[in-house]
């Protein structure tokens, strides 16, 4: 019996189609990956199956769940117990007022029907399994993104639903955790079925089963994961696979650029507030080099950057800047560009603000924009109507106009699709070389770090 059978499912607004008709079925033990760039309509598919499309969108076609035709109301009864979804932005899906442990225990109690005491034990056990024992008492805002993701996954799985939809389950996780999550998903699918939506080719490879590649709401290729991913027939699939950091060309092994020393730290202990995160950091950063920072989520990668930028005070130790420059030449790129740009004005206005504030020569803007692949029409729009990749490049544009000597890039590509991520990270390296600016690149992807960075710092010794 097929757990899920989708016939000509489509999603559209009142006047435009967002997802063209798509058909597939999932039997017990089967796994299916929907692969595609951000904005290709993958998430809409999951929402259409769950029956929680946002207002203004409607779905067409037929849907059968567990052998019965599903209506919007009948699906609601299945939520949690038979049909479960891992949401994309975990911090929005969790209760901001409850501790991680309590909300997990509540899910075991209310959804699976455990006794209160048994539910608490199950919650503790699951948290320990996820490596979160020491964070169980924390609320969502006290958890790092990766930790919140793991709590959300635990909650979604707590009901023991046989049919699991996972919408970008590994976004923002480091490789170890990613593999762990994927293993968990596969284990879950043994007795049920798994539909996984991802832009990460590596995840699709690990999950195996079947793959459907979606581009701009259209199915371009489908088949067994091995066949599609090893011998792609559609050019878009080939492009997607080539953009996976693992398949990037090797860095040409030129000798590390030995510019003047920019920044030196001695026995630095860093932390946020009173919490110590990493100690005894002694590093030397030279101009023009690209320095990678890796480590588990929550180990203080972002805090290290903030400390070097003097946004956070070091607990102990010394921090010495060897060049005396204006403070605005120490810049930062953020993980989520939409949160890092004001939405109150057009990008052009924001750029104009910067030009006026620092008396930047206007003629520098156009060539730099062309270099970053930004169209001038982009400046007429606001941050919310621009894609993440474009916005990240706009942030880079603003930083570059300030002639930075140091650029801290905090997972600048983790929210971008692979094709954009490749070009943005490549740009960062080129710029470091050309402008003699030191770039500190944080990422949880070891391939990306290996192929982009001259040196790597490992935080939180494993």
């Amino acid at each position, binding site marked *: 019996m097929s757990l899920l059978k989708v016939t000509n499912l489509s999603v559209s607004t009142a006047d435009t189609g967002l997802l063209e008709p798509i058909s597939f079925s999932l039997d017990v033990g089967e796994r299916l990956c929907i692969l595609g760039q951000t904005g290709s309509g993958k998430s809409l598919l999951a929402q259409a199956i769950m029956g929680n499309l946002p207002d203004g969108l409607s779905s067409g076609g037929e849907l059968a769940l567990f052998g019965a035709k599903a209506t919007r109301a009948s699906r609601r009864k299945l939520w949690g117990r038979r049909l479960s979804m891992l949401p994309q932005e975990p911090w929005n899906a969790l209760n901001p007022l409850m501790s991680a442990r309590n909300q997990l225990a509540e899910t075991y109690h209310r959804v699976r029907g455990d006794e209160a005491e048994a539910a608490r034990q199950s919650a503790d056990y699951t948290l320990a399994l996820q490596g979160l024992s020491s964070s169980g008492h924390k609320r969502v805002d006290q958890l790092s993104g990766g930790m919140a993701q793991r709590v959300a996954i635990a909650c979604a799985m707590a009901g023991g639903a046989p049919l699991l939809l996972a919408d970008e389950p590994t976004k923002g996780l480091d490789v170890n955790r990613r593999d762990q999550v994927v293993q968990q998903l596969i284990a879950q699918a043994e007795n049920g079925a798994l539909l996984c939506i991802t832009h990460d080719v590596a995840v699709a490879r690990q999950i195996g089963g079947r793959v459907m590649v979606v581009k701009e709401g259209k199915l371009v290729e489908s088949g067994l994961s091995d066949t599609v991913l090893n011998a792609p027939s559609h050019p878009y699939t080939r492009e997607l696979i080539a953009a996976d950091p693992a398949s990037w060309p090797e860095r040409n092994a030129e000798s590390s650029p030995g510019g003047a020393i920019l920044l030196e730290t001695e026995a630095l202990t860093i932390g946020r507030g009173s919490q110590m995160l990493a100690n005894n950091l002694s590093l030397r950063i030279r101009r023009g080099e690209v320095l990678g920072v890796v480590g588990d989520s929550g180990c203080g990668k972002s805090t290290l950057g903030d400390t070097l930028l003097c946004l956070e005070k070091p607990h102990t130790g010394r921090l010495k800047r060897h060049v005396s420059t204006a403070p*605005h030449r*120490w810049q930062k790129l953020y993980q989520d560009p939409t949160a890092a740009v*004001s939405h109150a004005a057009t990008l052009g206005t924001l750029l104009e603000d910067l030009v006026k504030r*620092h008396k930047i020569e206007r003629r520098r803007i156009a060539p730099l924009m062309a270099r970053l692949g930004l169209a001038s029409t982009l400046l007429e729009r606001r941050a919310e109507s621009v894609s993440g990749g474009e916005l990240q490049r706009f942030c880079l544009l603003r930083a570059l106009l300030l002639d930075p000597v140091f650029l801290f890039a905090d997972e600048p590509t983790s929210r971008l699709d692979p094709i954009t991520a490749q070009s943005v990270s490549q740009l960062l390296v080129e710029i470091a070389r050309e402008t003699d600016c030191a770039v500190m690149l944080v990422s949880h992807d070891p391939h990306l770090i290996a192929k982009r960075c001259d040196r790597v710092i490992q935080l939180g010794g494993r």
Partner: protein
Amino acid sequence: MKGIDFTSTRFWGALILLTLCLYAFAAPILSSQDSATQDLSSILRLPDSTRWLGTDHFGRDMWVRLADALQLSLLMAALCVLTSALIGVTLGILAATGPAWADRVLDGMTTVILALPGLVLVLIFAAILPGSFWMLYVAISLVQWIEYFRVTRAITRQVARSPAVQSSRLMGFGALYLVRRHYWPAIAPQLTTIAAFGAANAILMMASLGFVYVGIQPPLAELGLMIVEHFPYYADAPWLLAQPLIALALLVLSCHLLAGRTAR
């Protein structure tokens, strides 16, 4: 803005308020009467072609008196909203972004004011200098800025911690820029709702004080005062008592409709 939505509560609120404003400011100009002239030979007259809303117990023209009273209420509401918003937003941003001691002092101050019922506080002020419009204005504003302060402080605190503000700081922008591009755009949508309710409250407070004779003093026309003055004649001239009541109800209703549904 996408045209005017005729079914929205905000549209009807604005329509009622505009009509009342138009009446309040145009009626005294159009009429040959004035609000203070008494004519004891024609008291409690029914509305007719010369006295459009009749006359009160001193034979004063109600059409003009009601307009005067509305003018006073609208003026008070506008002044109170502007003043309390200005003070509340400024101090709120200061508390959220300034030094910790400023936040503590301001927070303590608001807690003290909140501990007293607003109307009692206004009553105390009004009793110090009965009948003074400006004293009432100071008293009502003093109570109302708290709400703007609390909302502004909560929003600004959150925005101040966002990457966007950190990024602007790193790029060398100053405090004023942060207010203009980050804090104000986050606060502004919330203000219209508070302002609409604040205006309604200011109008009601002034009327309440008039009703207990510590607000505006006769012979000036004020809605609360008119209600209590006309009260003895409710059997002989019910239309007379109804006029300020209906005017007050419409005014408050229009403000509440304007507040609309909270923007999400």
